[in-house]
C-alpha cells in the first residue's frame, strides 16, 4: 500500500502541459499541418538549387541559341541554331570525338584495374583488412585533385622517377619506342596522350572501385563455389557467373569515369598535348574567345552524351548498384 503510494508520487504526469507561448503554438501548428512543415523545410534548399543552379543552367542553355557576330564580337540575342551548326565543323567534331574516345578508353582501363581490388575487398578481405581496403580507396578518392595531378607531373617528367626506374631496369628503349608512336607518343610522357590517359585513369579509379565492390558484395560466395563444383574452370566462372553479376556495378562506375573525363579540362591542360578536349574548348571559347554561345553549345554535348548513357545504364539496372 505504502509502496504503491511511493511509486505514484514519483511518476511524472502522463501528459505534460503544453509548453505554451509562440513556440508551443508553432509546434502545434506544425503537428496539425504537416504539409506546412514539409513546405517550410523544402523551400530553402529548393529555392537555392532552383534559382542558383537550375536558373544558371537554363541561362546557359538559352545562350547556346544565340550567335556571336564574327566582326564585332558582340553577342546577337536572337534565336538561331547556327551555333549548333558550328559544332559540326571538322575541328570541333575532332574535339568531341577525341574526348569521347578518351573517356571510353579510361572507363575500360579503370574497370580492368578496379575489378581485382574490388573483388578481393568484397570476397576475401575481413575485419581489419576490410577497413584497410575501404580507406585505401577512400583516401585517394578524397585527397586533393590537384595534388594528384601534380604527383603525376613529378612522375612523368623527363627527369622524373619513371624514366629513372626504366633506366635502372634497362627498359628505356621501350619508353622511347612507345613515345615515337604517332598518336599516343610525344616528346615525353608528360606531353603525350599516354600521360593524359594514365592520369585520368588514376584520378577516376576510386569512382569505379566503389560501385563494383558494392555489386560484388552482393554475390553469394556459394554461387561461385557451386560453379566450380559443377566443373567450371576459374575463367568460366568469371565469364558466366561473376562478370554478369558485377556488370551493373561496372556500368554504375563507368557513369562516373565517363562523365568526369568528358567534362575535365585541367588534366589535359597540365599533362598532355596541345590538342583540345571538350572541357578545354569550353574554357577557351568562353574565356579568351569570348564566344559564350559556342561554349554553351559545347557543354550541351556532354549533357546529351551523359543523358543517353544514363538512360542505357538505367535499363541495365546500374542505379541499384550505386
Amino acid at each position, binding site marked *: 500500500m505504502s509502496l504503491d503510494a511511493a511509486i505514484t508520487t514519483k511518476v511524472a504526469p502522463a501528459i505534460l502541459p503544453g509548453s505554451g507561448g509562440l513556440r508551443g503554438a508553432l509546434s502545434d501548428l506544425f503537428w496539425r499541418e504537416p504539409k506546412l512543415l514539409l513546405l517550410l523545410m523544402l523551400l530553402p534548399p529548393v529555392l537555392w538549387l532552383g534559382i542558383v543552379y537550375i536558373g544558371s543552367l537554363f541561362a*546557359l542553355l538559352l545562350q547556346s541559341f544565340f550567335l556571336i557576330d564574327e566582326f564585332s564580337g558582340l553577342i546577337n540575342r536572337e534565336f538561331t541554331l547556327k551555333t549548333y551548326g558550328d559544332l559540326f565543323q571538322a575541328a570541333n567534331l575532332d574535339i568531341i570525338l577525341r574526348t569521347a574516345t578518351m573517356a571510353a578508353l579510361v572507363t575500360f582501363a579503370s574497370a580492368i584495374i578496379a575489378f581485382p581490388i574490388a573483388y578481393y*575487398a568484397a570476397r576475401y578481405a575481413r575485419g581489419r583488412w576490410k577497413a584497410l581496403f575501404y580507406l585505401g580507396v577512400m583516401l585517394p578518392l578524397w585527397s586533393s*585533385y590537384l595534388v594528384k595531378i601534380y604527383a603525376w607531373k613529378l612522375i612523368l617528367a623527363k627527369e622524373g622517377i619513371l624514366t*629513372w626506374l626504366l633506366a635502372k631496369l634497362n627498359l628505356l628503349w621501350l619508353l622511347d619506342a612507345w613515345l615515337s608512336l604517332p598518336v599516343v607518343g610525344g616528346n615525353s610522357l608528360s606531353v603525350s596522350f599516354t600521360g593524359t590517359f594514365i592520369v585520368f585513369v588514376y584520378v577516376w579509379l576510386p*569512382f569505379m572501385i566503389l560501385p563494383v565492390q558494392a555489386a560484388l558484395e552482393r554475390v553469394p560466395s556459394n554461387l561461385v563455389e557451386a560453379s566450380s563444383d559443377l566443373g567450371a574452370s576459374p575463367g568460366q566462372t568469371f565469364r558466366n557467373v561473376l562478370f554478369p553479376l558485377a556488370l551493373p556495378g561496372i556500368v554504375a562506375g563507368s557513369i562516373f569515369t565517363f562523365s568526369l573525363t*568528358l567534362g575535365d579540362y585541367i588534366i589535359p591542360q597540365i599533362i598532355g598535348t596541345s590538342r583540345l578536349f571538350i572541357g578545354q574548348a569550353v*574554357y577557351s571559347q568562353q574565356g579568351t574567345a569570348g564566344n559564350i554561345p559556342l*561554349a554553351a553549345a559545347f557543354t550541351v554535348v556532354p549533357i546529351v552524351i551523359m543523358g543517353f548513357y544514363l538512360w542505357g545504364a538505367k535499363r541495365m539496372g546500374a542505379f541499384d548498384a550505386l
Partner: protein
Amino acid sequence: MRSDRSQSAPLGLKIAAACGLLFLHLPILLIFVYAFTTEEKSFVWPPPALTTQWFAVTWNRPDVWQALSLSVRVAAISTAIALVLGTLCSAAVSRTQFFGRETISLLVILPIALPGIITGIALRSAFALADIPFSFWTIVLGHATFCVVVVYNNAVARFRRTSGSMIEASMDLGADGFQTFRHVVLPNIATALLAGGMLAFALSFDEVIVTTFTAGQQQTLPIWMLEELIRPRQRPVTNVVAMVVVLVTLLPILLAYYLTRDGDQIAGSSK
C-alpha cells in the same frame, strides 16, 4: 552462412589487388619526398639531397597564407550553408512521401553528377547576365551548391537507419516538435551531419574547376596550385604546399570515416 573464411585468395588476384592499391597510393607518397628535395629547377629523381629549408620559405610567403585563409573561409561558410540546406532537404525527403520527391533527390545530386565545368560556366554566364561582380560570395555560392549533396547523402543514409517510431514515442511522451528535434532527432543524426560537414569542407577546400569560373582576381589555395602547375615558378614552395594539402584533407576524411563506419557508408560521390 559463408564458407569462405578458411579459403585464401588466388595468388594472381592478391598481386593484382596489391598492385592496384600501390598504384593508388605511391604517387601521393612521392609528394612527401619531393617536399624535402634540395632541387629547385626541375623534378629530378632521386633528389640530390634532403632539406627542410622550404618549410621555412613557405611559412614566410604571404600569398600562400592569403590563399589558404580564403580557402578556409570559403569552405567554412559553404559548409555551414550546405549543412542547413542538406539537413532540411534530407529530413523532408526521408520522412514523408510527396509528389516530386524523386525530382528533389535528382535536383540535389545534379550539381555533382554533371561535370564541374558545366556548373562553372553556367554560374559564370548567369553572373554576367545579372551583372553580379565576382567576389568572395560568388565563390561561396558555387561551392555551397555542390556541397549540399554530400551532407544530404550522409543525412539521408542516417535517417533511413533511425526508426520513425522514436519520434512518435517522443511526441507521445509529451515533447513538442522543437523538443523532439533537439533531444531525439539531433542526437541521432549528429555524427552523420558532422561527417557530411567534414566531407563538404574537404570538397570545397579542394574544389578548383567551378572556382576558376566563379572567382575574379581572388586566389583560393587550389587556384594558387593550378597557377603553379601551369606555369611553375617556385617548385619547392609548391611541393611543400602540396604536402600540407594532403595532410590537411587526410584528417577530415579519417574522422568522417570513424564517425560513420558502423553501418552507413560515407557518401562516395563524385567531385
